[in-house]
């Protein structure tokens, strides 16, 4: 006998596992020994899209195959189905219900369903049969096209808790029902939303912090999108280059990875609020935000990003920028980048906060202080509304000095962990000893007025001291 036909049946079935249903079934014609190999391969995969017979023939084909596994008390480990349904076609819906129940009974591990309705565009969409969410426990990938997804689709409990991929295209779904699916299916890794009506807010919060890039959940939003709010925590968001998010008003990205370069090519004509919070990958990119109506931009992170904004319409806009000075940062580069960022935010009323991680190595900024002089003359200090410093007392002076070399705050605020009265007195000294002539105090000379307000630990209000 030839080499391939000699292979054990379980290996041949493993090979057939990787073939489409057509290709696998066709092997039965090869020779007598191949006649039944395909019948018991671990998976079944039917697509009406590539099937050439009638609807009736397709239904019987799926029926017959599934029945064979049931009769032989075997389990279809993976079941893939791509089918179109129509409301008037009660038979297809009933068959689908039967198949899903059979798969649940036999303990199928993985079920991928692509379901599309035939309804004409513009007419009301048919409701997704409730069996999909209420019975299909093994459902892993779900692609729904042209359906209404609402309470009728999951009146009772949502049982498809193993859902990993959710793709909605041309689906009518409201915010509440979308949230219900997402909250009931905690394993969703990939979601895409294309031309969905009714859905205005997308909120994905993945509680599990992914350990590797592979585990990150991925969300793809395709234009035309009617989405007003996107709120994503711990995920991967895919933007299409040049996409127009015409209705998007609020975009929150928290610990999100995304194709930042593509984002630069997107249009956000309605965007009012942009929050970028601890998105590490942004470090390697320079991004441009085309959001002429932006009102508020919040940034928080361990590094200073390179962000620029398109020309904006007139009006007040605000920015909260919270950056961390890491012990490993080079002071000159760091303050230079901060200056660049503040320059691009010059049309915003900026509240700047600087955190410094405590370090045992003493005052790292102090060691670099002479380098800071190099910044002088390169860029003008940028006016900001407030400067908030959260650092150790011993580096307060040099951190303030560095900050004042790149910005001119209206208010300076500071927070000292376990601050005591004598600390405050030292701050007072730092701020007022402007005449000392030390080069390191250079920038403090521009300080116009010093007044300190202290809140005691009982929070009994502010007491001005002079």
């Amino acid at each position, binding site marked *: 006998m030839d080499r*391939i036909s000699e292979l054990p049946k379980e290996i041949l079935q*493993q090979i057939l596992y990787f*073939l489409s249903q*057509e*290709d696998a079934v066709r*092997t*039965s*014609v090869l*020779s007598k020994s191949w006649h039944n190999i395909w019948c018991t391969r671990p998976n079944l995969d039917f697509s009406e899209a590539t099937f*050439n017979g009638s609807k009736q023939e397709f239904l019987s084909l799926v029926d017959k195959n599934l029945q064979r596994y049931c009769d032989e008390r075997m389990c279809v480990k993976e079941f893939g189905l791509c089918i179109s349904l129509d409301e008037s076609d009660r038979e297809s819906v009933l068959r689908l219900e039967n198949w899903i129940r059979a798969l649940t009974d036999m303990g199928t591990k993985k079920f991928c369903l692509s379901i599309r309705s035939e309804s004409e565009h513009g007419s009301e969409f048919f409701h997704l049969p409730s069996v999909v969410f209420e019975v299909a426990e093994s459902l892993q990938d779900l692609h729904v096209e042209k359906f209404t997804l609402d309470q009728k689709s999951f009146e009772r409990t949502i049982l498809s808790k193993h859902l990993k991929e959710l793709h909605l295209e041309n689906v009518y779904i409201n915010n509440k029902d979308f949230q219900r699916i997402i909250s009931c299916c905690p394993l969703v890794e990939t979601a895409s939303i294309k031309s969905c009506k009714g859905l205005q807010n997308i909120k994905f919060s993945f509680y599990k912090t992914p350990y590797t890039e592979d585990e990150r959940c991925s969300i793809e939003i395709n234009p035309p999108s009617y989405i007003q709010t996107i709120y994503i925590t711990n995920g991967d968001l895919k933007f299409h280059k040049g996409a127009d998010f015409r209705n998007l008003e609020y975009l929150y990205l928290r610990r999100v990875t995304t194709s930042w370069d593509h984002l630069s090519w997107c249009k956000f004509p309605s965007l009012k609020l942009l929050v970028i919070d601890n998105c590490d990958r942004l470090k390697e990119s320079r991004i441009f935000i085309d959001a002429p109506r932006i009102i508020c931009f919040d940034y928080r992170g361990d590094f200073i990003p390179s962000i620029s904004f398109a020309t904006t319409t007139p009006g007040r806009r605000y920015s909260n920028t919270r950056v961390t000075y890491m012990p490993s940062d080079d002071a000159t580069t760091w303050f230079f980048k901060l200056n660049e960022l503040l320059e691009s935010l010059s049309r915003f009323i900026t509240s700047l906060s600087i955190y410094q991680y405590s370090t045992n190595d003493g005052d790292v900024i102090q060691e670099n202080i002479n380098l800071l002089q190099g910044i002088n003359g390169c860029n003008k200090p940028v006016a900001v509304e407030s400067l908030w410093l959260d650092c150790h007392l011993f580096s307060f002076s040099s951190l303030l000095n560095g900050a004042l070399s790149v910005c001119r705050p209206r208010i300076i605020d500071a927070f000292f962990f376990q601050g005591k009265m004598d600390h405050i007195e030292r701050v007072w000294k730092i701020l007022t000893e402007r005449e000392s002539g030390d080069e390191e105090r250079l920038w403090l000379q521009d300080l116009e007025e010093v007044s300190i307000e202290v809140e005691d630990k009982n929070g009994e209000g502010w007491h001005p001291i002079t």
Partner: protein
Amino acid sequence: MAAETGTPTTLTLKSNDDELFSVAESAAILSVTIRNMVEDGCAGGVIPLDNVDGKTLASVITYMNGISAIPADEEKKKSYRDKFLSDKDFETLADMVLAANYLNMSCLMDAVSAKIAQVMEKKSVGWVRRKFGIENDYTPEEEAAVKEEHKWTFEGVETDDDN
């Protein structure tokens, strides 16, 4: 274990034609069969692998070393597997799939099976028969009957004179 002593433990594997191979334990335990032997403490001397010949075992060990050197990055592992299998002929692939099955290495088993399946994808019955040298032992009537039963699978297949 290797990690505890700081020096990598090596295992000696013996093929069915008595060739000996040294392989790092950390790479060898990709095979569940070998891992079980190590865990049962049978790995002290030489591990005999009665169903694998020397040529195939050398190839499998190259794969073990290559794939275990790649950190947890599925993309990179996949591209290594693709490259590793790209120049293998069917005879070698058949030996590898049998070895992978015997050694219980699911990642290699899947990769080789997929590679063999790829050859059959969308190909006519005649083409697959010729490619693998499969002898048609159906009578013309029997063959026609099987074809008729599954006639929906004969659409869109690459045409062939004896399709």
